[in-house]
């Protein structure tokens, strides 16, 4: 079979929220240019929000919040380890993104007076804008993409980036239905591949019961790493409070403003704020494992109309199968507490702070390579951050490509293309090899055993020893067709992410971000030595290199007590309980 060879000005990899706005913006600015949107699934239901979201978690609406306040809040929530300029850029550009979404037909909750109906969920400020008809979001984005004239390629998976010297020269991958090898030459690439959500194994043992859409297997983390880009904060894991055995959030953002809250088995509240942060998760974890566990979401005190409203939103957006889950267990919001648990670990900047290093222009450290959304490190960026940064990346990528014409593929690139073809299709030569799901189960079970907090050097090293062996085990994994091949390539991404997570966790010899990086052997936060970013990259010998990166001076200064603003989330009475 001949390769598919294409040429583009800009290739966007991943057609979720960030990828959609990136491709729309790029094509709108280049009416005669070639913008390709590459999607492993189909853009109508891809990305983290396959079925839409119930709201924007971090809207900075004039009159309700300011950019200064927001930057402070995120700096606090991330224990000071932020590139504030990148967060600031989001803060000042996100409102115009909301207005644009509003024009595109996205329905936000508004007051009788027609203003955006903002709710308070965060510890300090008010940033939550409900989107009760959020199930339309992906459809709306698809319509705008088509209207803009973007060339959309569904069911093609990127496996490696093409380089020309130091800079990006394109994308390599294959069609997961036909097996056709695909080479796309490009002047710039914007990675929007979502979280590394298939890293830890859910406690149920069900491989696809992950919090994140399991299609988000860390593709972007691995693609960027293998291309030589820096990643940052990988030790700051994503761990979320979820319904026990079900991968939906409980969900503080929806139920919180309507009076729902988290309680322990004694029916007492123990945290002041249900906003997801490492410190909140630490209190959640402590309570769960104390004699006061399990932990529950309490809704049974709410009025029937309020419960109907909660169900109307929660059972239609984000994770709409939750209604049938509860019913299957014979539980209802009016009569029962909803048992909660903590999710498997993952990497995600949308929720915590682990991702590919980007600056305020969405640039990675590789010229011509941009990243946005859950995989790009702008902490706690969520859906609106993905949409906003997709657009910002496109704007800056357009400036970058203005400078040169597409280069011919030299023998150096031909070598990369041939080598990757060989690597990708190798599993097809051993259809009787180890099945991908067995490999994946094993590597993810060992991620749980060795990387899940609480962390310690001994366990992390034991994990690393296995992840190294897993490199060789991957050479035994076989595939009988293109679909299996997709899963095998995802297994490579998962292994890469596991190694990054272990090495970054080992490198930062302190505890920070509550549960996200809780080291039993270094239980204290150590600002003197570790008030820095921990970055990693692949060096010229193919080795993973870890190093400190200074934190740039803040745009919005915080005093010492503000910096620790998220350290006291436990309710004082519960503090006394816990001490007993």
């Amino acid at each position, binding site marked *: 079979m001949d390769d598919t060879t294409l040429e583009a000005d800009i290739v966007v990899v991943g057609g979720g929220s960030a990828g959609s706005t990136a491709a729309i913006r790029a094509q709108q600015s280049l009416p005669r240019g070639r913008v390709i949107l590459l999607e492993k699934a189909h853009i109508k239901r891809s990305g983290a929000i396959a079925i839409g979201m119930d709201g924007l978690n971090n809207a900075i609406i004039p009159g309700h919040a300011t950019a200064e306040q927001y930057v402070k809040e995120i700096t606090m929530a991330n224990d000071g380890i932020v590139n504030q300029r990148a967060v600031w850029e989001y803060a000042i550009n996100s409102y115009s993104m909301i207005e644009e979404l509003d024009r595109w037909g996205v329905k936000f909750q508004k007051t009788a007076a027609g203003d955006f109906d903002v709710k308070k969920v965060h510890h300090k400020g008010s940033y939550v804008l409900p989107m009760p008809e959020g199930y339309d979001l992906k459809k709306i984005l698809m319509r705008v993409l088509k209207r803009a004239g973007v060339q959309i390629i569904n069911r093609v998976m990127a496996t490696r980036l093409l380089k020309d010297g130091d800079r990006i020269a394109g994308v390599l991958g294959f069609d997961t239905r036909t097996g056709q090898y695909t080479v796309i030459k490009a002047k710039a690439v914007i990675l929007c591949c979502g979280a590394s959500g298939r890293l830890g194994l859910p406690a149920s043992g069900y491989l696809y019961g992950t919090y994140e*859409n399991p299609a988000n297997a860390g593709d972007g983390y691995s693609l960027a790493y293998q291309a030589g880009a820096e990643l940052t904060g990988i030790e700051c894991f994503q761990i979320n409070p979820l319904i026990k055995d079900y991968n939906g959030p409980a969900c503080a953002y929806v139920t919180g403003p309507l009076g729902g809250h988290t309680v322990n088995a004694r029916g007492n509240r123990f945290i002041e704020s249900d906003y997801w942060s490492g410190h909140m998760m630490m209190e959640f974890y402590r309570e769960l494992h104390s004699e006061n566990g399990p932990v529950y979401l309490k809704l049974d005190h709410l009025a029937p109309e309020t419960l109907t409203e909660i169900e109307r939103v929660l059972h239609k957006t984000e994770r709409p199968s939750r209604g049938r889950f509860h019913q299957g267990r014979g539980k209802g919001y009016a009569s029962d507490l909803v048992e909660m648990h903590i999710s498997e670990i993952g990497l995600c900047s949308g929720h915590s702070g682990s991702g590919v290093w980007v600056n305020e222009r969405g640039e990675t450290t590789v010229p011509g390579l941009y990243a946005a959304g859950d995989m790009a490190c702008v902490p706690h960026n969520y859906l609106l951050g993905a949409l906003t940064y997709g657009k910002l990346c496109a704007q800056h990528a357009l400036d970058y490509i203005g400078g040169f014409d597409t280069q011919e593929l030299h023998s150096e690139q031909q070598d990369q293309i041939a080598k990757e073809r060989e690597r990708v299709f190798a599993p097809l030569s051993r259809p009787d090899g180890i099945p991908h799901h067995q490999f994946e189960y094993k590597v993810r079970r060992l991620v749980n055993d060795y990387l899940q907090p609480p962390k310690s050097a001994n366990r992390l090293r034991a994990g690393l020893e296995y992840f190294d062996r897993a490199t060789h085990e991957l050479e035994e994994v076989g595939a009988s067709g293109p679909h299996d091949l997709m899963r095998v390539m995802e297994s490579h991404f998962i292994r890469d992410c596991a190694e990054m997570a272990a090495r970054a966790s080992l490198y930062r010899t302190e505890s920070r971000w509550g549960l996200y990086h809780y080291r039993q052997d270094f239980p204290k936060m150590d600002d003197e030595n570790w008030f820095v970013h921990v970055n990693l990259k692949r060096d010229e010998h193919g080795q993973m290199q870890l190093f400190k990166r200074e934190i740039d001076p803040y745009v919005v200064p915080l005093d010492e007590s503000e910096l620790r603003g998220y350290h006291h989330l436990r309710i004082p009475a519960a503090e006394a309980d816990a001490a007993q």
Partner: protein
Amino acid sequence: MSELKDRESIKTLQARQVGNAHTERRFDVPVVVDLEKCITKCRICIDSCPVDCLAVNPETGKAHMKFDECWYCLACEIDCPKDAITVKIPFLLR
């Protein structure tokens, strides 16, 4: 006993060198398709699936869940124009 020990060392070596054997296993899967309602040659649900676990069953010409990789997100069920799909919570979580 010494004979057994030798045998074990030989088998240890062999265990590292022999090829792979495999078996078939039946899985209960979440996506249930009503063959009466499902339209032959319609591929809407197959396109909707974010993990591509649905396919046309060559025996029936109708959609079925081919790979045990469902995220129970309901995209297929919601997008089906004939209400032919019901997604159950995977048994391990039910």
